C-alpha cells in the first residue's frame, strides 16, 4: 500500500517528478560521460599505440609513460637500437600536442613506418608529397570536414591534406618527421622509439638487456602489454581527481535538487502528513514514504541518466570524433547509481525529518 501511495504521489505532480528525474539523470550522465570520455580517450590512445605493431616502447628520461614528451632523444639512437641483439626493427617518432592537449601530431618517416608495420591504409589520397603535407585519419576528417587538398593549420603553419588514413595506427595526424622537428626546434631528435623483437618470448629479455646499458639507465622502457596496463585512469592522478571533483559536484547537484523537490513536497503535503498522523502513522512511517519516493526518483533518474549517456556518446562521436572518444563504461553504472541514490537520500533527509516531526494538529489546520 505504501508503494502505491509513493507511486501515486509522484504521478500527482508530474512536472516536479519529471524535473527531479531529469536532474538526477543529468547528475548520472555527468559522471558516466566524464568517465566514458576518460576511458575512451585512454583506450583510443592505447589502441593506436598497439596498432603500431611494436613490442617495446622507449621514452627519454623523466618522460612518463602516458605523458607526451618533447623530442629529446637523438635520432641516432634508432640505429643504435637496431644493432642490439634480438631487435629486428626500430622506429623513431616525434609527438607534438595541439588543441590544448587533446590532439597530438606525430612526425614520422613514412618509409620507415611502412617497413616497420606495413604502413597506413589510405582511404583517399596517398603519402606525403612534400614537407607541408599532412595525413589525417577518418575521425579527424569527419570532425573537421576536410578532404584531400584542404589546408589545416598546425601551430599556424598551413599544411595540405595529402591523404586520409584508416584510424587505429599510431597517429590521428601525421606529418613528415623533419617538418615536425623543425616546427618544435628539435632537429635530429625524436620523442619515442618503437622496437620490434624477433620473438615474443624475448621481449622481457631485451628490456632487461637494454636497462642494463648504463646510458639507458634512466630511460623509460616498456613492453606493449605494460603500456596497455598503464593506460588507466589510475595512472593519471590529475584525471582521477578531476573525476572525483565532478562526482562531488554531481552529488551536490543531486542533493540540492532532491532537497528542493522534497522540501516543497513536504510543504505542499503538510495537511496530508497531518492526516496520516491522525490515522496513526509514526514518524518512521512518514519517513519511509518520503525515502521511498526519493529512492524511486533516484532510480528512474539513474536509468534516464544512462539513456542520456548514450545520447552524449552519440553527440561526441558524431560531432567531435577526433577530439574526444567516449565509451559506455558498464562498470560505472552501479557506481553512478549509488552516487545518485546517496545524493538524493541526503537531499530528502531534512525534508523527511521536518515531515516526521510535524505537529499533527498544526498540519491538519494547514491551508
Amino acid at each position, binding site marked *: *500500500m*505504501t508503494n*502505491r*501511495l509513493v507511486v*501515486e*504521489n509522484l*504521478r*500527482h505532480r508530474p512536472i516536479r517528478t519529471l524535473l527531479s528525474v531529469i536532474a538526477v539523470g543529468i547528475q548520472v550522465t555527468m559522471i558516466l560521460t566524464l568517465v566514458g570520455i576518460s576511458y575512451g580517450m585512454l583506450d583510443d590512445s592505447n589502441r593506436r599505440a598497439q596498432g603500431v605493431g611494436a613490442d617495446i616502447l622507449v621514452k627519454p628520461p623523466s618522460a612518463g609513460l602516458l605523458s607526451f614528451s618533447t623530442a629529446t632523444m637523438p635520432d641516432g639512437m634508432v640505429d643504435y637500437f637496431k644493432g642490439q641483439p634480438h631487435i629486428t626493427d626500430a622506429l623513431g617518432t616525434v609527438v607534438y600536442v595541439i588543441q590544448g592537449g587533446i590532439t597530438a601530431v606525430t612526425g614520422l618517416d613514412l618509409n620507415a613506418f611502412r617497413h616497420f608495420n606495413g604502413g597506413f591504409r589510405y582511404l583517399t589520397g596517398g603519402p606525403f608529397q612534400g614537407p607541408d603535407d599532412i595525413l589525417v585519419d577518418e575521425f579527424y576528417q569527419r570532425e573537421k570536414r576536410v578532404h584531400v587538398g584542404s589546408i589545416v593549420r598546425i601551430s599556424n603553419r598551413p599544411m595540405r591534406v595529402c591523404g586520409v588514413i584508416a584510424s587505429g595506427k599510431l597517429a590521428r595526424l601525421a606529418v613528415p618527421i623533419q617538418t615536425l622537428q623543425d616546427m618544435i626546434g628539435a632537429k635530429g631528435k625524436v620523442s619515442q622509439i618503437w622496437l620490434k623483437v624477433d620473438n615474443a618470448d624475448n621481449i622481457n629479455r631485451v628490456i632487461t638487456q637494454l636497462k642494463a646499458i648504463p646510458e639507458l639507465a634512466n630511460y623509460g622502457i616498456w613492453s606493449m602489454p605494460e603500456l596497455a596496463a598503464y593506460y588507466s585512469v589510475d595512472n593519471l592522478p590529475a584525471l582521477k581527481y578531476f573525476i572525483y571533483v565532478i562526482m562531488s559536484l554531481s552529488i551536490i547537484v543531486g542533493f540540492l535538487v532532491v532537497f528542493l523537490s522534497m522540501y516543497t513536497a513536504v510543504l505542499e503535503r503538510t*495537511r*496530508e502528513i*497531518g*492526516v*496520516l*498522523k*491522525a*490515522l*496513526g*502513522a*509514526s514518524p518512521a*512511517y512518514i519517513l519511509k514514504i518520503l525515502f521511498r519516493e526519493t529512492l524511486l526518483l533516484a532510480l528512474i533518474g539513474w536509468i534516464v541518466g544512462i539513456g542520456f549517456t548514450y545520447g552524449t556518446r552519440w553527440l561526441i562521436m558524431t560531432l567531435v570524433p577526433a577530439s574526444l572518444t567516449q565509451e559506455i563504461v558498464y562498470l560505472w553504472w552501479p557506481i553512478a547509481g549509488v552516487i545518485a541514490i546517496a545524493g538524493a537520500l541526503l537531499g530528502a533527509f531534512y525534508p523527511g525529518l521536518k515531515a516526521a516531526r510535524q505537529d*499533527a*494538529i498544526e498540519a*491538519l489546520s494547514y491551508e
Partner: protein
Amino acid sequence: MSSDFMIRVEDLRKVYRVGEIDVAALRGVNLEVARGEFVSIVGPSGSGKSTLFHILGGLTKPTSGSVHIDGKDLRKMSEAERTDLRKKTVGFVFQKYNLLPTLTGAGNIAIAQDIAGILPGFDNDFKAILNLLGIGNRLHHKPRAMSGGEQQRVAIARAIVNHPAILLADEPTGNLDTENSNAVLGVLRDLNERLGQTILMITHNPEAAAYGHRIIHMRDGRVI
C-alpha cells in the same frame, strides 16, 4: 474504573502557550461517555470542543486532569503509545474529509489498514458496511471525482476500518448540503445502532446534534 464507560474525563485542563501568553483552552472538563453511546458536543467557536477532541484522539497531551479511553490512561502514554492509540482505538472524521488526493477511495481506506499493520483488504463484514455507507461502487474513484457526501462517507469508512473503540467526528457535515448532511448523519446513526460504535460528534448544527443520544454543551473550556 468501570468498563461501562468508553470515555471518562476528569478535571481535564489544557493550556496552550501562544507567544508569551498562556491560553487556557480547557478549564476543568468532566465527561463520561458510555460504551455504544452517540454523543453530540455543541458550543461556539473557542469553547474548547476541538481541543477536547484532539486530546481524546491522542493528538496532543493534556496539561492536567485524567483521561481514560477504553480503560487506557492517556496521561501516562508516551508519544509512541498515543500514535498506537490513533491506529487502533480512535477513528477520526474531519469537516474537510481529509482524504489523500492521490489515492482512490479504496486506497484511502487501505492506507489506514496499512498504517495499523493490517494487511489491506475488505472482509465481508466491512463490505456490508461499505454498502451501508452507499459507497461500495465508488471506491475506485479518486476524491476529486466524488461528491462531498461521498468523500465524507469514504472518510467514515476509513475511520472505522480498524474497528476503533470510538469514532470522533469533527463537524462531519460542516461542508455538506442538507441532503448529504442527512445521509452522513444517518450513516453515523446506523453505525451506532447496528454496530454499537461509540461516537462523539462536534457540530454547530442543532439538527445534526439531535442525531445523538445526548447533547453536551461547551463554553469557555468547560462543559455546561
